[in-house]
């Protein structure tokens, strides 16, 4: 991390420092509240979308078209008995969901939502930080699986650790092309670098990397078709099988925030974040009145929709296929992408 920028943030003046601190805390609060609301409504969104894809209605009872369903779920989970297995490792069992949620929520710090709205604006290792945090959340899963002292949870934890480690590599490698092109790890600078081109979105030039990233993102967030750690029909619920009530919902929230964050990364790195491509802005200048946040959210929602769509469509991978896909296909492809991108960048 760039130390000078860190001190620059602290400022020299005490009043200034306190003011900045208050603004910072307010920003964090706003982001977390909005993120949690998004979690709540992305569950509703998912249930509705999958419901309609599966010729049923999804939640309909609580509120208009089930709009209050997330709150009903929250109330239910919150008041449920918190069961801790007597033979489990109590402190670790309690710690695991917190790690999982903490690590995913912290990732929000570097996501640029619109123009200047980033919590850690000058984080020049933004992408690296994201990878670090998503790796950390794997600890939550592994520890949950281990501390439950249940064989199903244990198998789920093992599967998850293997999966996260394999796909983390491919995930990071798929974004190296972006780093090469933009010359930065800072997410704001990545977006600014995309604006320099007429197409304004790296997905145009890095399409294979985008596909790789999406596949890895599905695996990282344990979503179908890579939902092996929680494979319902095999491991019942996988690593969180022993969790109930609020602790369960922490894992649940972590999974959905991870999904939102993966969508945010895809939008930021490949779809130009809150911006529209210059060529579009030139052709349709009136679009400038629409705030950047709208574009950002729209792009994120499209990605979330993709997550749900895939869930409703495909079966689940088998463990060995998952591993061979990760190591034998995705990682070599990601490496090839890096080499090609670097050569092209060097030549032109």
């Amino acid at each position, binding site marked *: 991390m760039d130390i000078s920028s860190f001190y620059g943030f602290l400022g020299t003046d005490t009043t200034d420092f306190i003011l900045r601190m208050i603004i910072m805390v307010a920003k964090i609060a706003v982001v977390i509240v909005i993120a949690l609301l998004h979690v709540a409504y992305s569950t509703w969104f998912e249930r509705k979308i999958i419901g309609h894809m599966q010729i049923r209605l999804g939640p309909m009872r609580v509120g208009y078209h089930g709009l209050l369903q997330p709150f009903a779920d929250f109330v239910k989970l919150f008041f449920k008995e918190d069961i801790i297995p007597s033979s489990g490792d109590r402190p670790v069992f309690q710690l695991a969901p917190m790690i999982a949620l903490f690590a995913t929520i912290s990732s929000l710090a570097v996501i640029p939502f619109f123009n200047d709205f980033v919590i850690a604006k000058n984080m020049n290792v933004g992408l690296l930080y994201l990878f670090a945090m998503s790796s950390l959340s794997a600890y939550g899963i592994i520890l949950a699986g281990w501390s439950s002292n249940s*064989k199903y949870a244990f198998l789920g934890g093992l599967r998850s650790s293997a999966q996260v480690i394999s796909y983390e590599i491919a995930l990071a490698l798929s974004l190296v092309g972006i780093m090469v092109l933009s010359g930065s790890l800072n997410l704001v600078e990545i977006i600014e670098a995309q604006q320099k081109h007429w197409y304004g979105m790296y997905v145009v030039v890095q399409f294979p990397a985008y596909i790789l990233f999406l596949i890895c993102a599905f695996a990282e967030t344990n979503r179908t078709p890579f939902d092996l750690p929680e494979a319902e029909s095999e491991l019942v619920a996988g690593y969180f099988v022993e969790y109930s009530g609020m602790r369960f919902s922490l894992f649940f929230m972590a999974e959905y925030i991870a999904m939102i964050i993966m969508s945010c990364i895809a939008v930021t790195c490949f779809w130009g974040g809150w911006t529209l491509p210059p060529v579009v802005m030139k052709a349709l200048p009136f679009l400038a009145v629409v705030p950047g946040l709208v574009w950002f959210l729209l792009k994120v929602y499209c990605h979330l929709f993709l997550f749900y769509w895939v*869930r409703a469509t495909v*079966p*689940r991978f*088998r463990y060995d*296929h998952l591993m061979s896909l990760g190591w034998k296909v995705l990682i070599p492809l990601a490496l090839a992408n890096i080499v090609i991108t670097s050569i092209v960048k060097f030549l032109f």
Partner: protein
Amino acid sequence: MLKKKELSINMGPQHPATHGVLRLVLELDGETVVKCTPHVGYLHRGTEKLGENRTYPMALPLTDRLDYVSSMSNNIGYCVAVERLLGIEAPARAKYIRTIMAELTRIANHIVWIATHALDIGAMTVFLYSMRDREWILDLYEMVCGARLTVTYPRIGGVRCDIDQEFMDSCYKFIEDFPKRIEEYETLIDQNRIWLQRTVGVGIISAADAINWGLTGPTLRGSGVAYDVRKAAPYDAYDQIDFEVPVGKNCDVYDRYRCRMDEFRQSISIIKQCLDKMPDGLVLASEAPPYDMPIGKPRVMPGHPMGEILPGELVEEKVPFDELYSATEVPKGELGFYFVNDGTARPYRMRIRAPSFVHASVLPKLCEGSLVADVIANIGTIDIVLGECDR
């Protein structure tokens, strides 16, 4: 937990993928299954014993509860067996109606099978698509007999009530529209790469092994053995109907899946032929036993807690002293009824050869050496229902 290399894990009896209350004790080395031991009996209701204490017509509703997703086929299997025992011949119209019902049930059963099998492998949408279509068949059941799940529609010597034109029309509509639904399922999974990876080359059992293990139905035919009771020992109207028996080639989960998908189409063709050829006439044989069939002479049961002699009315002897094995092709395989009769209206011994029970026994053969995920695929592919397995 980790003292030994193998982790022994209890899959079931409460597990979403064991299709009821099957319990498998798996010894795992990592993700590989070293040993698989099926335990059955969690749904044991003593159906065979109950059958011994009821007259033949009274025991009919018990068969609904064997394989509760294809109750009509069980009823028919039982009725055919008792008819053979008592020497009753059902009228032609009843035979055609029963054939239609059996094939509708085959479709309904395969729908539940594809739904759960696909759900186990992770394709969730197929489940809901196919459950929607099963509803259609249950509505047809309801139209003809008022019940949807445990129908008890066939009777010994025919069927309980006649079908009307409305049912015929609905049935025509069904066989016209349903092939599109089969294509819908196939669109979702048939050529899906993940589905192929999960099913091709998984759960291989050679034709010789399949016969030695006593497999029947599509589970056997997936291994390339064209054995079908409907062809081998025709009952009802099957000898007057033209149909094919789809067989597989590669003996794996995918071929068994293909077999059943082809059976959908064969069943539709059978229903169509039956509807076209439907003869007029009675639906119940005149010599069919009444619901309150007299029990017959008292039964001597040495050492029975209720006394040495069980009560019974003395009536003229109608039921022959005989024993008989009768098999029918239910959707899951060969459902056999073996009766030993002592001259009363109750079987002295009723033995049910349930395909699910036989199929459950082959699980270790299919699963050992494969991965945990394949256990799920294998449970799905043998298509068991524990109500029938445990009886």
